[in-house]
């Protein structure tokens, strides 16, 4: 196990690289869901405005 985390001495480079990629993947999931939620809220607001105008 120790050996695995040590990555043959390259731990300082391998793990940050994986961490950055993981962060990008997770952020993308978060951003995509947030963008969808925002669009839904925006659509709801527009529908409401149209309802009021009628």
């Amino acid at each position, binding site marked *: 196990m120790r050996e695995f985390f040590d990555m043959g001495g390259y731990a300082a480079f*391998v793990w*940050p*690289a*994986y961490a*950055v990629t993981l962060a*990008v993947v997770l*952020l993308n999931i978060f951003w*995509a869901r947030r963008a969808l939620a925002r*669009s839904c809220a925006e659509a709801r607001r527009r529908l409401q405005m149209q309802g009021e105008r009628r």
Partner: protein
Amino acid sequence: MNWSWFHRLASPPHVYALAARLTPWFAWPAALCILAGLWGGLVLAPPDYQQGDGFRILYVHAPSAWMSLMVYVTMAVSAAVGLIWRIKVAHAVAASCAPIGASFTFAALVTGALWGQPMWGTYWEWDPRLTSELVLLFLYLGYMGLRAGIEDTQRADRASAVLAVVGVVNVPIIHYSVTWWNSLHQAPSVMRLAKPAMPLPMLVPLLLMLLGFTLFFVALLLVRLRGEVLARERAASWIREVVSA
């Protein structure tokens, strides 16, 4: 030729519903492929005979680099389709691509630099591939900047589509010129190992990661696409059902 099937397929409510339905079918296989690829790449694959365990950065760097280019091409193709046939959904796809592509280009740059330190002894080498990747990041940033600068969605769609098409014509020229420039100024870089056929235990995890990232991109795209489709529809009755649900 009868195109009505196509128009039905590309109609916003249909696309919205389809995207929602398809997302899990891409998301879960993506997760599976990536996990299997990680296991294979970090545990099962033997250390490289030259680079030791350092080469394992390949399993995140190569998929990120692949994403950066593949997403750009996807973006440009759908932008061109939207521009030529005036299909709003195509513009929505292009708009969804940019932030995904930009973030993975960033990841490719960072992982490339982290790989470079042990291999070249420096974080940044003016290697043609890394340089092209950096230019690609600027192309993405320009695309997103142009989009953000134009308030009207339709005009933003069409203007940024022109930029994406111009960009995709330029990417090979830029890559060629950077390679040409690089070959003048330095000997072929250390990175360019004589690549014998990669042994199977190394290759399979890489392929799994590439596939997993691609599936992941499609899943992300489908989620973002729904939002972009909603933003482009005005006063359509189907939105009420979707939003209130």
